[in-house]
């Protein structure tokens, strides 16, 4: 794999240093992020947890290169980011599928830009549509899909482009409980084989404990890093193991503190 950057295998691939973000003219409005510093290691799956509006999507947008931080810096493989790039795949909270393209064409979009030959593209599309269980819907347009189906297309589209870093914003949020677990298992299986570097935003603590190497809990808005948990569980995780449940309740307690603040 071509995962490791200049830092070498196991080094930090994404370095977020003292990032502040405020929206509005001259960044004068209330801040969305305050002094966020994080490192995402190569082949690590890092989960971001935090109350709604705490700045998870904002942080992801900054790492993706869509918006600049107001202060601080973000480096990918040691280099400052200059806009979006195909090595950082993004799964959007709002899917952002191209409505004029079919499901298969959406998934094919990245490989086509990369100049992947047609025969190989067909293989890639077939593989990822199969992975997300949408092979039968390849020729449909996004308007014909349910929210959960769109979300799976968005996942397939991002992964089909083979990014070494994947930024996923509540990628399973619109899925029913069963599909969601299947997708979680699929992602953790991919991760064991392909060792991508993943930043994964979720509201589900169970999901985070199931998937993550580390979990970052953010404070309520304006978002800061509140706590970081390293999940020392075997690669193939058992949702009913005592250890699993212990992590779950510990993190639940920390997250609840923040959610309570929002509602005050």
């Amino acid at each position, binding site marked *: 794999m071509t995962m490791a950057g200049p830092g070498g295998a196991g080094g930090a691939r994404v370095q977020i240093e003292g990032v502040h973000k405020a929206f509005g003219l001259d960044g004068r409005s209330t801040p969305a992020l305050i002094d966020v510093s994080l490192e995402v290691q190569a082949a690590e799956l890092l989960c971001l947890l935090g109350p709604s509006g705490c700045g998870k999507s904002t942080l992801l947008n900054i790492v993706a290169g869509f918006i600049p931080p107001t202060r601080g810096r973000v480096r990918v493989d040691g280099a400052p980011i200059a806009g*979006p790039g195909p090595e950082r795949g*993004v799964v959007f909270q709002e899917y952002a599928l191209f409505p*004029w393209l079919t499901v298969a064409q959406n998934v094919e979009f990245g490989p086509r*830009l990369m100049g992947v030959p047609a025969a190989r593209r067909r293989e890639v599309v077939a593989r990822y549509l199969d992975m997300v269980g949408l092979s039968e819907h390849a020729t449909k347009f996004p*308007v014909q899909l349910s929210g959960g189906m769109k979300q799976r297309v968005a996942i397939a589209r991002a992964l089909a482009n083979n990014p070494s870093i994947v930024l996923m914003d509540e990628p399973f949020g619109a899925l029913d409980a069963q599909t969601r677990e299947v997708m979680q298992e699929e992602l953790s299986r991919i991760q064991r084989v392909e060792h991508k570097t993943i930043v994964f935003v979720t509201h589900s603590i169970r999901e985070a404990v199931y998937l993550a190497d580390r979990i970052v809990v953010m404070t309520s808005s304006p978002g800061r890093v509140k706590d970081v948990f390293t999940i020392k569980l075997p690669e193939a995780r058992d949702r009913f193991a005592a250890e699993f449940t212990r992590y779950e309740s510990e993190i639940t307690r920390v997250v609840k503190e923040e959610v309570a603040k929002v509602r005050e």
Partner: protein
Amino acid sequence: MIRAAALAGALTAWALVAYGGRALGLVNPVLMPTPGEVVEVAGTLARDGSLAQHLAVSSLRIAEGFGLAAAAALGLGLLVAVYTPARLMLEPVIEFVRPIPPLAFLPMFLVWFGLGETSKVAFIAYTTFFPMFIGIAAGLGRVDVMLLRAAASLGASRRELLRRVALPAALPSIVVALRLGFGLAIFVIVGAEFMGADAGLGNLIMEGRVFFNPAQIVMGALLLGLLGSLVNGLLQAAERRVLRWRALG
């Protein structure tokens, strides 16, 4: 079906007013030509080949003027979409010129471009350009930023963003702008041909006025309407084809 019925209804109403009004002495025959008289005029003009010629002359002027304007609107719309300085420079100029009723400028076009074809083509192009440009530029400017982000993070360059995201996303607005522009071309050709033209449907209508032949006026108007709906129908069919994905929802 409904459309056909509505059309038949309108025709019947016309026939009723024209023939009935005449029979009852309510309508001055000179002021209200009957469908029969209009068809008769059309037949006469068709037989000596002049009808086809007028139609061809007008169609060519519309096609050229509209084609030029559409190309310019598309080109400048794209330029403005990708290059902010161009937008900042063009916007105030266009906002200044746009509200002037084009017909007010028609005499200037005759002065500048003479009585020949150029003045008519230029006038149609001038009139149809603004609404098309504004529609196209707005469509390109409204492209969902999430789609642009998605494509950029899949590796699209600026060029590819334009070609593979902005253009298809703005296609509905572009098609609407073109239809609008074409409707306007039909609208202003009459004015352009009223002044100093020796052929064309507008000229035919003017001739009808000068020689007091209401049937000829009505025929010219109906032909323009027919031409307009024909092309509009074609554009709508094209629209349905390229925008197939929207209809499925």
